[in-house]
């Protein structure tokens, strides 16, 4: 199935953009302006939709043929191109889009032909499915791990690195004790939320920079007791 690669779904939507010759600013220009103003980092509206690995919005005015001999071709209208790679099921994701970011979705797709709005979720899902085309290539960044798993793995990696840095060189007994405490904290640590930039700092690593010789020596002595 070309829309799915492992557990990741690749959703490609092409929505025709409205043509309104009477409008003061044409829809494709207005849409481009709006998209240009959206944040592209973790505070972007789509970053908060659960399961999103990445997404991209592009206004496509027309096509061009770069080969030889040159050929002039045109699309029937200009299109909004939307690509999202996410975990799990398409319909569930579309539902989340409508529920998590309705204002943003409406503001973007109101420039498109036949857009029913997000209020009627079933109609929204039906509309998006009608605009869908098959995805064949993916941004190969995720190794078939979900967003939650990836963020959790980064959290564990960062926490473990900090733990090692702070405790390497300690006696086995002290190390075991500290690791048990660390493990408990790590297990119960709040999971990073989608769109989070920093992985959570565990309470035992907050504040002081780790691995100062004096501290470690002290800790080694403590552990040896």
């Amino acid at each position, binding site marked *: 199935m070309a829309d799915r690669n492992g557990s990741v779904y690749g959703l490609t939507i092409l929505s025709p953009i409205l043509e309104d010759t009477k409008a003061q600013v044409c829809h494709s220009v207005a849409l481009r302006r709006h998209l240009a103003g959206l944040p592209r980092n973790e505070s972007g509206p789509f970053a908060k939709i659960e399961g999103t690995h990445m997404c991209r919005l592009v206004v496509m005015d027309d096509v061009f043929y770069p080969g030889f001999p040159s050929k002039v071709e045109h699309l029937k209208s200009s299109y909004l191109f939307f690509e999202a790679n996410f975990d799990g099921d398409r319909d569930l994701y579309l539902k989340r889009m409508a529920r998590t970011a309705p204002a943003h979705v409406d503001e973007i797709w109101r420039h498109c032909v036949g857009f029913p709005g997000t209020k009627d979720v079933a109609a929204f899902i039906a509309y998006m499915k009608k605009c869908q085309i098959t995805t064949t290539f993916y941004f190969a960044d995720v190794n078939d791990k979900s967003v939650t798993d990836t963020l959790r793995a980064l959290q564990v990696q960062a926490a473990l690195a*900090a733990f090692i*840095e702070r405790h390497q*060189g300690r006696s086995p007994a002290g190390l075991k004790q500290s690791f048990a405490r660390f493990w408990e904290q790590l297990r119960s640590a709040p999971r990073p939320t989608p769109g989070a930039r920093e992985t959570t700092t565990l309470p035992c690593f907050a504040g002081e*920079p780790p691995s100062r*010789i004096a501290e470690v020596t002290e800790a080694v002595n403590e552990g040896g007791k």
Partner: protein
Amino acid sequence: MSQLNASDIQGFVLRGYTFPVARFLFLEISEHAAGRKLIESLVDEVTTGERWDKKPDSTLNIAFTYQGLVRLKLPDAALMSFPVEFFQGMKARREILCDVERNAPEHWDPIWREGRVHIWLGVYAQSPAILEDRCRNLQQRITATGGAAIVGTQDAAALVIDGKVTSKEHFGYTDGFGNPDYQGVERNSQPGQGKLMPDGSWAPLETGELLLGYPDEGGELPVAPVPHVLAINGTFMVYRKLHQNVATFRRYLKEKSQLYSGGEEKLAAKFVGRWRDGTPLELSPDRPDPAIVKDNQRNVNFTFGKDLAGTRCPIGAHVRRTNPRDAFGFNGNLVNRRRITRRGLPYGTFTPWDQPGADDGEHGVVFMVLNASIFRQFEFVQQQWVEYGNDARQGNDKDLLLGNHGGRGKVMIQGTEDPNNPPFLCGGLPNFVELRGGDYFFMPGITALRLIAAGGIDPR
């Protein structure tokens, strides 16, 4: 391919001179006519790549920034055909290169912030007295033509340690191993220096990885300016003045080695992938071996394919990051278009081993890179392999020695259950090396240089 025409290639491109002292003169061209006259007066003494029957007392080479070529009034068609990174210059490329924060232009020497450098003159000599003589003579002629003003100089010299001239840098590592071999360059090839072949032997890289006008490893001619005669036998040079924080390095190494059961020297070796005497960790993981260092058949002849876990040479060690050889699989083919030729010489005096050293003051390495494509070769290595770790599966970790860590860096040193080779995490990494400026230069072939001097580049 047959032998290159070494008399048309600047000697600096084809060989490391191994002279003990050097001075780099930075010139600002006054205007095109006088500037061209100056170049014309220098052309005949530019050191070429021809074989030396007897080693000369000194050498002279020349290279230009883009602004220098503009000032010399190269035809617009030629100027507009240079690659964009050379047109922009190194300062404009700072985000790509991670030359930010402590490496940002505001910390550079004024000369590199002002953008006044048009010409790089490199003078190498057998002794300080010869260097002074040659530079005095050059200076007089530069003044006499009125073609340019010397806006800065940089002295560099092999470090003298315990009264001996060495090939060490300020952190105590022996430097200067392993420049690549190229097709057609007359040189005593060493196994380990070119590209890895399927049968495990080494072959020279295609000439076009170093020189413009020849096929490269992709089987095409590198992106080069027009007309062809301007490009052929030329190359691009990256000049970077790398300051070394000697005190920070020594303190950090000492502090961490108290926790590292392999000992201080081994930890120092793990940082770089070579013991400080130059022995590759991959060949001798437990101790330095002077016999290997002296043996040209062995001192760069190693691969990482059997050490993918990094327990001999850490995955994040400097030599492994900057030349991963076969570490990324595909029999090493992924690195063949990312190789750079390095020319470097320290500046400043060595701090005796028993002293803590200082971070301030003038000590570091003048680091120069020669490559056909600054974008594809130097910038890629700097961005992806020095300042990022994804290719090596090291996440955001940077090159331990060169990385712009800002005090927040970490690098994992892989190990085994052997207490003398434990895994170890180097955290809280500071910047051991900081950038003090530099730029991108074009180093033309001799014919091209004569045409530039004559104003004879075809205007199209």
